[in-house]
């Protein structure tokens, strides 16, 4: 009975919660850049590299190399966002849940760890409505134009990582962009103003994304005192091919090389300080848009503190706080935008064996703001990561 409850509960957990979104920044350019991070990284304000210990983060292959045992991770990320236009024309709230990271790693003989991850890259879900009117004969008829955009870009990644000696580890992965974008424009005529048999005008299409990226990373860890890691992700162009019955054209977007660097130092008494930085140049991507944006070099950084000796219910429960800032390459205002957030959270080790955590959960909460020239968003973003190992 208990087993069935577990299966049912996990099944529910993995059901995508329908079409939703987390931000109006989804409407700009290629959408809101998503980060395949777990809740621990979020709580520490990190950008996905250089945290102490091992982890299943696609942006930090070196940390995967130190997993040692089979590991699976799943992350859910709900958010609640209040938005307002700078001109005061509109304000409101949106909310949604994303699953930015699902991954599994498994030892390959004595060679190292092979891993498979599925992570978000861009969120492109939104809808738009615009009232208007058209003149039909001698009459003016009210209409509502709507644009429904659904889909996004994700990456499925296959990689291999391994330790080199006691201190070093490294890894490499190949990712394939996938996902799709559905865009549908509909013009609806006002009820009662036209014959009931008047049909809506609808047009649109479906594009499928493809492309390849390669990530390489390396790291060094000296016991529990210090760890530093870095990675670089080279990406080919992101291609969007229309399906056969789509009238829209194909698009190709150059994707930037992304550099990540991070480090963690254990100061004393289980108190660790971490910091990381990421850089990517979106200039070519922005220039490739139909309406070229002024996207340029985007820098992200984050700092955080982890108190590793904290306990909850008699089990290790590290407390985390942090701060992060990142540049968003696309924004409704057409240029770069900035997202900043104060972060926090804790972990809970449910089961461990020796130095291995066999079951654990991490929670994070962020209070942040996105700002560009026309739009301001303030958000709460939660994070929940489940980590199972040794199966």
């Amino acid at each position, binding site marked *: 009975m208990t087993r069935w409850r577990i299966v049912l509960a996990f099944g529910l957990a993995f059901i995508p919660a329908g079409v939703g979104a987390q931000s109006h920044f989804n409407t700009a350019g290629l959408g809101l850049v998503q980060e395949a991070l777990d809740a621990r990284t979020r709580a520490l304000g990190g950008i996905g590299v250089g945290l102490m210990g091992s982890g299943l983060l696609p942006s930090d292959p070196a940390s995967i190399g130190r997993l040692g045992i089979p590991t699976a991770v799943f992350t859910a990320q*709900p958010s609640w966002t209040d938005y307002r236009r700078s001109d005061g024309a509109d304000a409101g709230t949106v909310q949604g849940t994303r699953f930015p990271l699902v991954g599994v790693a498994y030892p390959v003989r004595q060679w190292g760890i092979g891993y498979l991850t599925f992570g978000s890259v861009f969120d492109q879900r939104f809808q738009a409505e615009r009232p208007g009117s058209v003149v039909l004969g001698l009459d003016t008829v009210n209409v509502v134009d709507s644009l429904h955009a659904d889909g996004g870009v994700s990456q499925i990644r296959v990689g291999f990582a391994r330790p080199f000696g006691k201190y070093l580890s490294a890894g490499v992965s190949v990712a394939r962009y996938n996902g799709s974008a559905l865009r549908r*424009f509909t013009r609806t005529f006002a009820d009662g103003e036209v014959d009931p048999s008047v*049909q809506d005008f609808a047009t649109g299409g479906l594009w499928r994304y493809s492309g390849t990226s390669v990530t390489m990373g390396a790291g060094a860890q000296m016991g529990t005192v210090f760890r530093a890691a870095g990675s670089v992700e080279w990406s080919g162009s992101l291609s969007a091919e229309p399906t056969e019955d789509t009238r829209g054209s194909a698009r190709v977007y150059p994707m930037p090389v992304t550099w990540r660097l991070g480090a963690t130092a254990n100061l004393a008494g289980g108190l660790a300080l971490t910091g990381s930085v990421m850089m990517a140049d979106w200039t070519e991507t922005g220039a490739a848009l139909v309406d070229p944006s002024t996207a340029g070099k985007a820098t992200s950084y984050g700092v955080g503190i982890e108190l590793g000796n904290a306990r909850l219910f008699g089990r290790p429960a590290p407390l985390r706080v942090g701060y992060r800032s990142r540049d968003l390459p696309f924004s409704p205002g057409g240029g770069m935008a900035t997202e900043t957030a104060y972060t926090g959270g804790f972990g809970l080790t*449910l089961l461990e064996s020796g130095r291995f955590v066999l079951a654990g959960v991490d929670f994070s909460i962020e209070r942040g703001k996105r700002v560009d020239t026309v739009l301001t968003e303030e958000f709460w973003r939660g994070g929940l990561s489940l980590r199972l190992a040794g199966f």
Partner: protein
Amino acid sequence: MIRKKLGILATLAASTTWACSEQTPTSLEDAVFPGDIRTVEVELPWAQFGSGLEVLGGYGSPVELGSAVVAQAFAGTLDANTLVRFADYPDRATVRDTTGTSRTDSTLTFLSGRVVVFMDTIASTAAAPVTLALAELTQRWHPQTTDWTLAVDTLGDSMAWGEPGGGPVLPVGTAVWDPTAGDTVVFPVDSAQVAAWGDTTAVRHGARISLETPGERLHVRQVVLRLVALPSVNPDTLVDVTAGARSMSFIYDPSPLPPPDGIRVGGVPAWRSVLDIGVPAQLDGPPALCDAVGCPFPLTHDRVNYAALVLYSRSSDPAFQPTDSVGIDVRPVYDRGTLPKSPLGGSLAPTILGYRVGPGAFGSAPGQRMEIPLTGFVRAILLAKSDSTVKAPSPTLALLSPFEPVSLAFASFEGPGTPAAPVLKLILTAGRPVELP
């Protein structure tokens, strides 16, 4: 223990994610819309879409109408007589015998009777008392095929009336109907006439009801023969029994001819108008369209929001003008080559009553515009043009009454070649394709 913790953990995860209701953000920016989406209305003249208009008559028979008509020089021209064949007389009735006990008596003696005519006061034109005449037919007739001049017109058998209009007849009597006093007319019938109509072997079996007051057209809903019978079980009492009409029809003169330049729907026998719809693959006008969306304008199914055949009413022949609203149905004709017997497709009208038009449109207020929506039909034609895997619908449409026959009156519309010829109204929307950013 471990399973319990994992269960709690998974349940927590599920509830955390599942509890988050989703709200898709509604964009604040006009820039996300594809540009230059335009909606225009155009009307194509008959020459650009229509052809092969043909008016066909003869569908159904007055006997199928369930009601009948009498007229005398209505609108100066129309004469109409109602013909009735009574059903077999009842051969038994339940009566009280001399002891007061109810019994079924199968030995009835019919002493007299009365023909009761129920009038349709709404559809009838008379506002003042009118005189009707009842007579006995004197020759055999066939209810399904009889008309003003022929008593029988079946395959291999044709016989004219001795006198047009159902004659010669043997007069039975006259009666006055005052439409302000009620809806029935009663003709007393003596025992000899009762016996004559009761002889079901007589080939002349039947009655004719005619109107003697000129200038009116009356609608007859029902005719029955009320019989006064003497029961054998109690000779001191009389009972009423009823013989309904086995067949009721009407004959009229003159029969309208097909309009040379118009569209006709309805009547009895019913008229249908058949036409072919040919939607052009592209439009090169009118200027309003070209100014809005450019020309040539490829006409594809997804650009058609609305399509309708627009007709303009004209006055029907005064003798056949409707006194109530008229329904117009439209159905595809599967095989034009086999007309007038081609099977028809399902109705394109939204209700079984068709598109309703008031009677004035075909009488005192002609020229009224009527739209018959054909959006799905036109889109299907255009879809078949662009997709070879889609079977094109028959391009031939029939305009007809939702029920045939439904009334002596018919609807008339202007046809091709007239100033108010039919047009095809289109509401079109076009714009650049939706693109990714």
